[in-house]
């Protein structure tokens, strides 16, 4: 900011109030940095017991036995990754469709309320999604979606098994509704940031409106990928809705109809029941792994979105 320089030119002496104020605000900014470090440090300290006992094996073992004090996080990591991936597969085409519709097609009078409704979806609390998923979506999946999938695509192991309703598929579907608003609203802002000249040039060269949109899409590719990864970050850490529909069983199975378990749900379910030090420590290690995973995913996504929109005014709102 240029004010400081001008001030120094005009008044050579340093104002005490300015120095105090600047350092005070800087202190609070540092506090945020300190907080992130403290979070990692606290969790590492509390998880030490389990980290020392199991080492890296913790990440690839699939036993979870509080009685024998044997812990491994693989089923939870698997459940988190598969449910998130499923959510993105479902949400991705829809989100891009919405983004294109809002940024390129919809007239202004339609676009404003539609954007508002999509953002309302982002504002619904996770627990309400959970309640709705549990009482409305799961029965629908059990009676309609799963029988239809197994009768048409049953030759693929993914869609085999008894239709419980509750399970990995339900978790993926509820997550897809939850990541949809984030991915679509950021993609919309990224699409809007495409310089007009790009589209005008395409149109002037005789391309159709759809071809011009495709050029805009490829121009904003890295921003859209950033939006998708941000959605992934949200899906990885989503707790309540997933806990209520995934079935909470630490197994790894090929079928999407089977129940699973995610890292966030095991924390939600078992944290208050953890009676021994080792049990608690293993759970906190899961939290630490989840924390690091989301930090990495989010850093990557922010960098991509920042590189497109100026300092991420779009990403800020999520």
């Amino acid at each position, binding site marked *: *900011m240029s004010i400081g320089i*001008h*001030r120094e030119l005009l008044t050579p002496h340093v104002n005490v*109030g*300015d120095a105090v104020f*600047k350092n005070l*605000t800087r202190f*609070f*900014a540092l*506090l*945020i*940095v300190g*907080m*992130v470090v403290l*979070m990692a440090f*606290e*969790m590492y300290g*509390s998880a030490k017991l389990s980290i020392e006992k199991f080492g890296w094996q913790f990440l690839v073992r699939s036993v979870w036995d509080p009685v024998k004090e044997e812990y491994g996080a693989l089923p939870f990591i698997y459940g988190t990754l598969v449910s998130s991936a499923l959510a993105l597969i479902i949400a991705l085409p*829809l*989100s891009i*469709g*919405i983004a294109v*519709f*809002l940024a390129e*097609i919809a007239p202004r009078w339609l676009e404003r309320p*539609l954007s*508002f409704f*999509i953002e*309302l979806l982002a*504002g*619904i*609390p*996770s*627990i*309400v*999604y*959970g*309640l*709705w998923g*549990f009482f409305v979506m799961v029965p629908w999946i059990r009676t309609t979606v799963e029988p239809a999938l197994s009768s048409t695509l049953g030759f693929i192991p993914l869609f085999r098994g008894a239709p419980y309703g509750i399970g990995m598929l339900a978790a993926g579907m509820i997550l897809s*509704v939850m990541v949809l*608003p984030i991915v*679509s609203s950021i993609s919309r802002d990224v699409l809007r940031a495409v310089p007009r000249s790009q589209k005008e040039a395409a149109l002037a060269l005789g391309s159709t409106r*759809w071809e011009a949109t495709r050029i805009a899409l490829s121009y904003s590719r890295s921003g859209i990928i950033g939006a998708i990864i941000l959605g992934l970050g*949200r899906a990885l*850490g989503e*707790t*309540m809705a997933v806990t*209520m529909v995934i079935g909470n069983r630490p197994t790894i199975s090929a079928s999407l109809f089977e129940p699973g378990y995610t890292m*966030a749900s095991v*924390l939600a379910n078992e*944290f208050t029941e953890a009676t021994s030090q080792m049990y608690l420590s293993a759970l*906190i290690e899961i939290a630490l792994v*989840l924390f690091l995973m989301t930090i990495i995913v*989010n*850093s990557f996504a*922010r960098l991509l979105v920042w590189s497109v929109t100026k300092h*991420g005014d779009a*990403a*800020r709102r999520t």
Partner: protein
Amino acid sequence: MFAFCGLSTLIALVPLLLIFYRTISLGMSAINLDFFTALPKPVGESGGGLANAIVGTMILVGLGCCISFPIGIMAGMFLSEYGNNPFGTSVRFLTDVMNGVPSIVTGVVAYTLVVIPLKHFSGYAGGVALAILMIPTITRTTEEMLKMVPQSYREAALALGISQWKTSLRIVLRTALGGIVTGVMLAIARAAGETAPLLFTALNNRFWHTSIDQPIASLTVFIYNYGVSPFDDWIAQAWAGALVLMVMILLLSIAVRYATRSRYAGN
């Protein structure tokens, strides 16, 4: 292809409408005066309400506000007024990254920070967990809003001989106050709807709490506990709780929308 785009927008609106419809139709049937004024009844007795949970949510969010406001607003001020350097960029980046940390993880952090040293679940732990969630939103909104204050305001104030810190506090902050309030409301709306960070910090309480040092009930944890319970009566109350929560959040977001209407006119 354009038809597909319109269709996907329609598909996205279906769950929104269905969730609203279910929550309103099922929630309304269990809402009565008791719901807002009475304590939860023991298992087997019908009736009762979630008065303590509604108050509990307000206390927890209030506590979160007390912790997160000073940090968020001061840090936002730093970013906008002095943050045009590599340190500012890295704080901005960390804040954005923190925004994506799962809420359940902030619960775990609050557990290790507050519950373990105090050796019991308490409202304080819940407040800390919510504060960690709120800080990034408040920081970034404050920064954006302060940046929208025209540079000429700052220059005019400085030209009149007002020192820079007074300019920041009395001119810039005051001008941007409306926008900052919306950021704060967004953070409050988000915090009020959080369940995961409260599960093992504030825990739950079927009675009135007498001090913040005790476990405190919250609307969201009650919705969870009642929603997965086998009793029809409790499930109906869970829907009613969801309705109350949604109305609270909807009012907040409409207020935000209204307050920022002119500001975001270009968006």
